[in-house]
């Protein structure tokens, strides 16, 4: 969490200008000047865009300036804003940092996010933005939950547009925000268009009734009656703060310029009519001299910001995290526990909760007495009251809330009941949690754990049995782990929670839940771990191996059986390398083994196209061409997982299939 303090005054400017009582009894001259500044800023952006000095596109809020000003006026230090692709006005209203934003949009190092985030991805002084629709609402709810837990009376305001009402995750978040009474102000700017599509084409029912249906208090205002807007905004903020409940503020407004560039198909007459209602034009007509002064100062400031920005270099690529550049060191595995994997996960979570009260569990059906679909969280809700929360069936929202809490310094652990449902939370993981640290220039980290049972062989069928990790591997800024029964999951979770610094996906194989955690090895073999915090495991034969088998997670058990079988029945000695951390992947333990065997079998339970095995094979090839004399991947066929268990077992790679594949490689 950025420790930056928040400023909602424009440094020094406008504070001495008297209120424009005739234009508004509520809005101050200073606020008009801020509005002129926002407009000048965005008009300059349009100019810069035409000059080819901007990247991507520009979403202006010209015509909507007062909605942000109205809300921000009532915010206090410590309150947070989460805004969207059209967020320059909100940001400037809250921070006044013209130079920082201009440099940011121009991709410069002096930008508020070092030029990484650009127009739509801002983080400074308690203001965040993201360009993906809807997903910011659960993240804001998570920030609001953290605010509530901190008990300092702070709130979060999230800005969305009417177009965003098409996103389902918004309603997941509404539901939870209302149910959990989160101090969240949802400011909806209703400008009647989703990009170029008119609301009449896309919106059924009533906007406010949507929020009201969730029991959220709703208010309405517009940017043409400014007194009412500022009053309603004050009411809304006051309600959220005082009641510690969400409030929905609908602000009707109109975007006077295109959505971005060159995509305005609205009726010109309609646009013209709204220009005639523009409060800034009205102010200019009424106070031409003052307006001219505001505009001039604004333009000067913006011009200076552009000059400043252009003097700053472009942002540079973030240095890659270098893989551990050291020898692989193996130590014999020693696991004292005789508990099951599920019991050890429980123990790890419990220890983490005991030692750090920031650790909070979110998930579906995880409270006692049910304690989770696989009973991993058992009685934790009774042991740690308030820190284990049952959520509605809202995977996206619960992950988003976890991310928001993590950004605020909590250590949430989100359980996704079945790994298949990760797909529901995909946007939250990939477009939100994974991106924040980078695009906010390291000002935030998102230490959220998403743990989920994966894998088949239980007859759960095509949508409750998959190993979908390949879709989540390789997202920069994340980590992916696959637990197994040869490394103590309790130790894993304890370590993880102590040093987590990024969104972390933990795959727990369903079948392994019931297996005992132990370091018992087949005769003539030994379990070893690398001497790292998240070790790679190997089943090391006492003699030199003929083949390396790489696997992870639930496949380890099958591979283990295959190794035993290969020796007993086929006189083949195999070594297993089983990384705990799949991404980022340290290739060294695999390379080390393959340098001896020069033969490789990669086994995974998921489907093989563009999967972990493909990556490992490619990486080995790049790292040491010609190293492998033979190799093979053994994965599930490109076939949905059948519910019929015998067929399922037939399709998923088991020990026999692994042994057979290994023989193909060896012989």
């Amino acid at each position, binding site marked *: 969490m950025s420790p930056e303090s928040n400023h909602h005054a424009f440094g020094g400017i406008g504070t001495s200008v008297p209120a424009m009582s005739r234009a508004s009894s509520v809005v101050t001259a200073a606020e008009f000047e801020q509005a002129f500044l926002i407009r000048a800023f965005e008009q300059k952006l349009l100019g810069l865009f035409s000059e080819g000095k901007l990247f991507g596109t520009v979403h202006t809020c010209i015509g909507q300036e007062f909605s942000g000003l109205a809300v921000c006026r009532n915010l206090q230090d410590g309150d947070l804003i989460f805004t969207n692709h059209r967020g320059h006005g909100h940001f400037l209203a809250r921070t006044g940092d013209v130079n920082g934003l201009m440099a940011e949009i121009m991709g410069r190092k002096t930008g508020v996010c070092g030029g990484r985030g650009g127009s739509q991805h801002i983080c400074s002084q308690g203001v965040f933005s993201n360009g993906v629709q809807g997903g910011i609402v659960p993240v804001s709810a998570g920030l609001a939950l953290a605010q509530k837990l901190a008990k300092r009376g702070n709130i979060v305001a999230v800005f969305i547009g009417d177009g965003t009402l098409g996103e389902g995750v918004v309603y997941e978040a509404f539901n939870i925000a209302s149910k959990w009474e989160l101090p969240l102000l949802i400011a909806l700017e209703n400008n009647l268009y989703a990009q170029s599509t008119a609301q009449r084409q896309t919106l059924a029912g009533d906007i406010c009734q949507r929020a009201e249906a969730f029991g959220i208090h709703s208010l309405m205002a517009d940017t043409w009656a400014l007194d009412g807007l500022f009053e309603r905004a004050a009411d809304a903020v006051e309600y959220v703060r005082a009641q510690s409940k969400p409030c929905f503020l609908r602000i009707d407004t109109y975007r006077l310029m295109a959505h971005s560039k060159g995509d305005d198909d609205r009726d010109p007459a309609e646009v013209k009519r709204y220009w005639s209602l523009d409060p800034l034009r009205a102010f200019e007509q009424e106070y031409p001299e003052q307006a001219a002064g505001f505009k001039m100062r604004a333009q000067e400031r913006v011009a200076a910001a552009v000059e400043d920005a252009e003097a700053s270099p472009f942002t540079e690529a973030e240095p890659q995290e270098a893989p551990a550049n050291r020898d692989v060191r193996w130590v014999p595995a020693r696991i004292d526990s005789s508990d099951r994997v599920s019991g050890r996960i429980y123990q790890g979570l419990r220890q983490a909760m005991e030692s750090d009260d920031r650790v909070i569990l979110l998930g579906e059906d995880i409270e006692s007495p049910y304690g989770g679909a696989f009973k991993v969280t058992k009685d934790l809700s009774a042991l740690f009251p308030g820190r284990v929360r049952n959520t509605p069936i809202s995977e996206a929202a619960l992950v988003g809330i976890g991310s928001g809490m993590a950004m605020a310094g909590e250590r949430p652990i989100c359980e996704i009941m079945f790994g298949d449902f990760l797909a529901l939370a995909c946007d939250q993981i990939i477009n939100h949690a994974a991106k924040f640290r980078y695009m906010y220039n390291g000002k935030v980290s998102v230490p959220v754990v998403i743990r989920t049972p994966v894998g088949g062989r239980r007859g759960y069928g095509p949508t409750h049995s998959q190993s979908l990790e390949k879709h989540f591997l390789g997202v920069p800024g994340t980590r992916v782990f696959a637990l197994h029964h040869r490394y103590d999951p309790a130790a894993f979770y304890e370590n993880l929670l102590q040093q987590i610094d990024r969104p972390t996906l933990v795959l727990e194989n369903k079948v392994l839940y019931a297996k005992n955690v132990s370091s018992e090895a087949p*005769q003539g073999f030994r379990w070893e771990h690398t001497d790292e915090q998240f070790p790679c495991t190997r089943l*090391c*034969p006492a003699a*030199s191996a003929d083949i390396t088998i790489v696997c992870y997670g639930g496949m380890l058990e099958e591979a283990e059986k295959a190794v035993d079988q290969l*020796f007993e029945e*086929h006189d083949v*000695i195999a070594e297993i390398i089983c990384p705990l951390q799949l991404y980022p992947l340290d290739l060294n333990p695999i390379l080390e083994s393959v340098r001896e065997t020069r033969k490789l079998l990669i086994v995974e339970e998921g489907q093989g196209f563009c999967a972990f095995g493909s990556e490992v094979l490619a990486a080995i090839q790049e790292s040491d061409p010609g190293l492998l004399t033979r190799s093979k991947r053994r994965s599930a066929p490109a076939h949905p997982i059948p519910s019929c268990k015998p067929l399922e077992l037939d399709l998923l790679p088991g020990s026999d299939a692994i042994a057979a594949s290994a023989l193909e490689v060896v012989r």
Partner: protein
Amino acid sequence: MIQELIPVLVPQETVNDETVKLTAWLVSSGDKVQAEQLLAQVETSKALLDIHAPADGFVRYEHQLGSELAIGSPLCYITPAVDTPLPRSSPVIAAAKVRKTATKIVAPRTTSEKRPRHDVGETGTFSPRFSRSAVRLLGEHNLDPQQFAHLPLVRAQDVVSYIQSADEIDELVSGAMPAGDAFQPAFASSVPMRWESLPRRKLGEIRRLWSAQGHALASSVTVSCPTRGLRSLLRTSGGVVSSPVAFIVFEAARLLKKYPAFNAVFAEGHAGYYEEVNVGIAIDYGKGLLVPVVRNADQKDAIEIAEELRDLMYKYLRQELKAEDLSGGTFVVSDLSAEGVVSFLPLINQGQSAILGIASELFPVADAPGSFNFILTFDHQLAEGRMAAQFVNELAERLQTREASLRSQTEVTQEQENTNS
């Protein structure tokens, strides 16, 4: 240069041979020789053997070509000086270096160099694991699993390559000639004779013993143990322990803790002491000479040992002994007491330093106390005759004590029975 004289002994090559024939001297007595230099050739019943010098020095001998020399007797000596006095007879036994030109009779060769992947010190001793096909081959070729003690994972190819390297020894043993009709012995005799190939079982045994003899400097002591008839006493007492062997294993196992040099192995100038006392029992009841192992015999009582011996015997007879039954021995007891043997020379097994032989009870005068002999063959690299004598004497004393106590118990019981009747 050596400090003391080294006797070069006539090596034991097959258990069948008591003597070998000296067929060639390749040096003259008094010649200066270098270690490994070829000294002589001797002929066993099956093969010609090269005898190499064990060290630099002067070779000294008296035997003439064609002499029959007893196994274990000195063939010649390597002396520090050309005129070092020679002993009349030497109790010290040094192993002659026996080599076939291209083959070393040491550890079996394997297909690939095994890297020591596991630190044995950390996890305890490995007992080899045999693949299914390896077990089958062991059985087919009657191989001792202990031959593979240095391999943690033994596969068919390991056994095959062992057999192949052993076949080279077989060639040595059998004069490099095919067996059967095609066999053309290098050995010639004026007396008409016929040749028969030895069964693989026997060849396996030869190999096993050879590989141990190549490493040990075998010496032996014999101690006579007075008895009034321990065998018959046990047979008639009706107890669980019906043979002296269980008691001997029991007592020997405990004594081995006191005399670790006999529960050890010599390797590369080091003494390796076994942490366990696993006593092998040489059994030969017509199904081959096998040595099943009573593990941790020092921690078992005599009854447990007796029961285990009975189980092993049962398995032996049914040919159900598994690789694990036969591996891991650290000491062997060889009992020929039922065979009317007064004395014999037990041969140390591979990876061990001693073997205890039990000879038959002798009663020269009817109805008077007699005795039987304990023979301890031991590796002189780890112990001396005196220590060996102490070990065997203590064993004999314990056996006497036990016999006395058993006899008094039995007599009491018999008296009671007499009284009751």
